[in-house]
């Protein structure tokens, strides 16, 4: 229902401009089929560097290398070209189309706003070129060095100054008085706080202009200092917010390609879509910027009690561009096309991608989950899997007999066993009993839950049993309908999620920490709000993370979410972006109603059952793509569900009180 509205931006001037912007780039890259090195007459190559590379995805192995050139045209025009080498792609998946997509040709420095230099102590130096339009190119990695010369050359031909805010940012053609710039930068903290000043939103990567000029001057929420921001125009009246923009834009620069790809996609799609949002905006007399949350975030019905700092990344538009619409689940016929004659999955990445976008038909979950969870190898044959199933069944029975053979006399002297057994028995009868599969007295599936969990507590005695495990096992047993298979799938899941249940909760804490870092990256006003309200421990997201949103959606939706998460397609940690996506959906209410920790916890708990999974997955995808490497950098290595970093013991030794 929201879909149609979401697509509907055709009457929006900003959006039109962005489309135009996108089209220009498309034209630039597509119109040039030759990668000839000949330059127009009167042009002089003033800088040339080979092995300048972009990484189109988060994977360092996927790269496109090319030649970067600065060309002086006439007396004052400096042009930048970056042409990928032909036929040297690191990866077959990077098609000719990709190469064309990324090609940078004929970019004039009159259109460049800034260049940021990154000189990590480890790894390659790279630069990010940000256009005045707000569009940023992907980072250009200088495999053979040369960043310094590049900047020196630029400086010879255009006016280049270091940003007062950041020594690694070089502003192009910024003729502002440096003193003024410095003074105005002092206003920055006010701009980013959750005070009443609307943070001048950064341009979206679509190339839209920063929205200050669109903001309703009469919205009454602006403090006096905000007048500083009002002059933001194309005439480069200085605006400190621009420096914020630069930083935020850089976060998105990795994904510029998505902007381009998707812009062209939107061209096609928009022809078929009805357009209503812009009209609705007019009807409500709302400016595009201020209305965006209200329109998209239907959940936010309550009136805002205090003005809220706007979302710095204009989340709704982000999702529109980068979150792909959900697809129908993978069905039987299509599934067959992924398998070779002996039952191997031929292209596991393509399969994972397919499932990421649509999930799996329920009757296919049984075979597919075993792959996703890592119980079966993608390249195993049907025969191998049949064999493994038999072997594993025997192995399971062996472990199971260990606790089954504990006699009553032995149990008397085996406190830990008695405690675990008691706890598991108490919990399985409190797990999903409203689902018909588990309902009723003396339900055999409830007994299976108990047997599997108890066997697991022997298989992994260090970890044992912890509440939440039954929630994770329940859908697995429901899908696998087989005791041993369920056990091994659960084992595979616990390889990743086991640390959630460590006694010291280290797995939970590392995820909560990563979540706070991601929110800081993707919604700094919200982060600041949590900080000011003593909510940075993110305990209000505890249940989400502990059991992978099991209690937040109805059963069928949980299974859909899980299989999407388990693809690890965009990130192993998509679940954290799901958290961010949900928080961002409700950010205006959280901040507007000035929720304190208690209220927030209660509010978040109350969202259970009311979250639109498809919309959130789309948001999460967009956020994950946008955060790119910077997002990944927020998540410490080994954070669940990443496989634990090997350091001898899989689980910290549990002390004696463990249950």
């Amino acid at each position, binding site marked *: 229902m929201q879909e149609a509205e979401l697509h509907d931006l055709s009457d929006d001037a900003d959006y039109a401009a962005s489309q135009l912007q996108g089209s220009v780039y498309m034209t630039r890259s597509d119109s040039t089929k030759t990668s000839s090195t000949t330059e127009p007459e009167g042009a002089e190559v003033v800088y040339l560097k080979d092995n300048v590379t972009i990484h189109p995805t988060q994977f360092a192995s996927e790269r496109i290398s090319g030649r970067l050139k600065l060309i002086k045209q006439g007396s004052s025009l400096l042009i930048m070209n970056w042409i990928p080498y032909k036929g040297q792609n690191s990866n077959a998946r990077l098609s000719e189309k990709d190469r064309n997509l990324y090609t940078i040709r004929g970019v004039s420095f009159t259109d460049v706003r800034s260049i940021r230099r990154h000189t990590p102590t480890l790894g390659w130096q790279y630069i990010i070129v940000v256009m005045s339009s707000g569009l940023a190119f992907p980072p250009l990695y200088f495999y053979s060095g040369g960043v310094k010369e590049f900047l020196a050359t630029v400086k010879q031909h255009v006016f280049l100054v270091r940003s007062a805010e950041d020594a690694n940012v070089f502003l192009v053609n910024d003729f502002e008085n440096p003193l003024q710039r410095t003074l105005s930068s002092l206003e920055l903290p006010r701009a980013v706080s959750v005070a009443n000043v609307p943070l001048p939103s950064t341009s979206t990567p679509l190339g839209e202009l920063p929205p200050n000029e669109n903001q309703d001057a009469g919205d009454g929420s602006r403090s006096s200092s905000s007048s500083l921001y009002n002059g933001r125009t194309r005439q480069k009246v200085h605006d400190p917010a621009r420096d914020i923009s630069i930083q935020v834009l850089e976060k998105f620069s990795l994904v510029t390609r998505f902007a381009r790809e998707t812009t062209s996609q939107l061209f096609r799609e928009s022809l078929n879509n009805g357009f209503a949002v812009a009209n609705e905006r007019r009807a409500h007399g709302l400016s595009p910027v201020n209305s965006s949350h209200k329109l998209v975030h239907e959940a936010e019905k309550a009136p805002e009690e205090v003005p809220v700092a706007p979302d710095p990344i204009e989340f709704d538009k982000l999702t529109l561009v980068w979150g792909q619409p959900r697809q129908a689940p993978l069905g039987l016929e299509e599934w067959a096309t992924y398998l070779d004659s002996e039952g191997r999955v031929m292209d596991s990445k393509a399969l994972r991608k397919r499932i990421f976008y649509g999930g799996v038909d329920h009757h296919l979950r049984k075979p597919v989950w075993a792959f996703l969870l890592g119980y079966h190898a993608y390249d195993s044959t049907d025969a191998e899997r049949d064999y493994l199933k038999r072997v594993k069944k025997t192995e399971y029975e062996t472990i199971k007999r260990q606790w089954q053979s504990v006699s009553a006399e032995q149990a008397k002297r085996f406190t830990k066993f008695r405690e675990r057994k008691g*706890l598991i028995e108490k919990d399985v009868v*409190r797990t999903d*009993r409203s689902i018909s599969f588990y309902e009723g007295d003396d339900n055999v599936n409830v007994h299976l839950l108990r047997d599997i969990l108890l066997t697991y507590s022997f298989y992994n005695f260090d970890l044992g049993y912890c509440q939440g495990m039954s*929630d994770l096992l329940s859908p697995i047993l429901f899908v696998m309908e087989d005791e041993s298979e369920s056990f091994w799938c659960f084992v595979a899941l616990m390889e990743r999620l086991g640390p959630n249940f460590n006694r010291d909760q280290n797995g939970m804490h590392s995820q909560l920490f990563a979540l706070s870092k991601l929110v800081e990256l993707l919604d700094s006003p919200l982060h600041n709000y949590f900080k000011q309200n003593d909510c940075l421990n993110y305990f209000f997201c505890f*249940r989400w993370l502990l059991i992978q949103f099991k209690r937040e959606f109805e059963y069928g939706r949980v299974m859909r979410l899980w299989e999407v998460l388990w693809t690890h397609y965009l990130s192993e940690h998509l679940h954290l972006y799901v958290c961010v996506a949900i928080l961002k959906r409700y950010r205006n209410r959280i901040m507007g109603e000035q929720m304190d920790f208690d209220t927030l*916890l209660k509010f978040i708990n109350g969202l259970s059952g009311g979250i639109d999974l498809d919309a959130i997955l789309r948001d999460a995808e967009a956020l994950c793509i946008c955060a790119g490497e910077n997002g990944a950098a927020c998540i410490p290595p080994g954070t669940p569900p990443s496989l634990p970093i090997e350091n001898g013991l899989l689980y910290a030794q549990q002390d004696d009180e463990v249950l």
Partner: protein
Amino acid sequence: MSYAYLFKYIIIGDTGVGKSCLLLQFTDKRFQPVHDLTIGVEFGARMITIDSKPIKLQIWDTAGQESFRSITRSYYRGAAGALLVYDITRRETFNHLASWLEDARQHANANMTIMLIGNKCDLAHRRAVSTEEGEQFAKEHGLIFMEASAKTAQNVEEAFIKTAATIYKKIQDGVFDVSNESYGIKVGYGGIPGPSGGRDGATSQSGGCCS
């Protein structure tokens, strides 16, 4: 609905002692033997009347397993009352009371009213902790004590209300600065801001104590 005061309660105690059932019995007046185990925290609320004043109880029902203690501790903040629950049929849940109490003392405000509840008193035939032991423990640690049954509803209402009455009396006695919400008390519309507004002290409407 408006209230004179809002009290935050927290229910603590070992897993499976019946915390969620006590809450459900109090808020919904029903016993539901099959409900999902609590992960993190659940919430309930109910209006009661004390001294003819409407008081809203906001009740936090916590997960009992040891592993979650660290997160449970963050819920104590700003609680005016705590229901510390054990299961009279399981000795170990009684044995763990001291450690629960220690947590509560350490992480809650010093004036938090704590009610000790020996739950499942309908299962007298399986009793593993005598009433006297419960009374003794409460006396030693300055707690109010009741045995109750979430199943039969015996003393459930009383336990929650007696706790509220005790908190209310503390307000009347000026123990709390009710403008400071860290005590777990919010003054609502029609509330009396400060102890000076108290006229005739707390008149408990709670039922009698379980014996």
